[in-house]
């Protein structure tokens, strides 16, 4: 085996070993890497009352109530949903049917008290006219 060949194998084996170990570590700490939990994950997570975390999903249609600067709504993943209350300034994209991430605590009243609301944008980009066309033909599935 020439030295070049040996160095080639060394780099390949080294990268495989490094890749595998990083993969295993990331897999092990996967639940700490997620930015938020979905309402369904919340049921099995058993996060203690008063601990700060984030939940994410869609703002359930028909549940958004505004009262001054306070809003209440439900975050849903189409399987389960969680009631949320928040007082403060909302991002522009926030509305019913839109993706949302809320940071705060679960309180004893069973309501998630958010201290920060972030709007989640999806991967779709299109001009308003296209959306109007899609809505007209009943092919629109988004918010």
């Amino acid at each position: 085996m020439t030295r070049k060949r040996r160095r080639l194998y060394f780099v390949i084996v080294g990268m495989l070993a490094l890749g595998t170990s990083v993969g295993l570590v990331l897999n092990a700490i996967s639940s700490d890497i997620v930015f938020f939990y979905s309402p369904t994950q919340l049921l099995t997570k058993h996060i203690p009352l008063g601990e700060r975390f984030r939940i994410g999903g869609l703002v359930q249609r028909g549940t958004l109530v505004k009262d001054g600067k306070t809003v209440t709504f439900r975050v849903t993943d189409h399987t389960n949903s969680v009631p949320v209350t928040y007082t403060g300034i909302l991002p522009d994209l926030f509305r019913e049917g839109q993706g949302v991430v809320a940071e705060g605590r679960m309180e004893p009243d069973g309501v998630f008290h958010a201290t920060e609301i972030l709007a989640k944008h999806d991967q779709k980009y299109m001009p308003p006219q296209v959306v109007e066309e899609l809505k007209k033909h009943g092919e629109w599935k988004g918010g």
Partner: protein
Amino acid sequence: MHRFANPARFLRIANAVYPWLVAATFLLMAAGLWFALFDSPPDYQQGDSVRIMYIHVPSAWMGMFCYTAMAVFSAMALIWKHPLADLLARATAPIGAGFTFVCLVSGSLWGKPMWGAYWVWDARLTSMLILFFLYLGYMALANAFDDPIRGQKAAAILAVAGFVNIPIIKFSVDWWHTLHQPSSFSLFAAKHSDIAPSMLLPLGLMALACQTYYFMVLILRARAEIASAKIRTIRMAQVHAAGGGE
């Protein structure tokens, strides 16, 4: 492939394609910016903020492309000891770091009005920031030794090992819940792209412009590196001759 490892042959080819790259970069950038800023529709949700995407997404792609190129050049340098491979890796690093920086800043400026935050520590943003630090670490390490050969070897090992971050960036939005949206492009879905054709045009032009810009600047930087290597060799020879004369 090894035929191109000769610096003289590389310079001959590079000098021939360089004017074409300059012309292509200029034309593609002008057309891309025209469509991106003036002749494309606003988005139904984001309004005119969507135009940030036309610089953000190409620079993110280029940040990852340049790192991949740097890792491949570094591996070639480690395995086959081609001096030209080391030189190209070193020339690529600042370009990639620049693209990654533009990606981070433009994304941050988009994030405030859309998400409601300049920065969040989700998997996509964090792994992209790590990419930026890898570039900085590579450049620092390559210049940290008095003997450039030693610094180059250490930096090459860092570049190759850091390549594990590239698939993490790409798949972070699929593997974990992130605030960052998933990719708009899919090879396997029936619909390959979630971006309207009128917006795909400026994005494609800008992506191509950034790509030719990279090769253009790479040639400029490689020329300078080859010239400075020549100067170093001449100086060494002079020092040797002076030392031998005593």
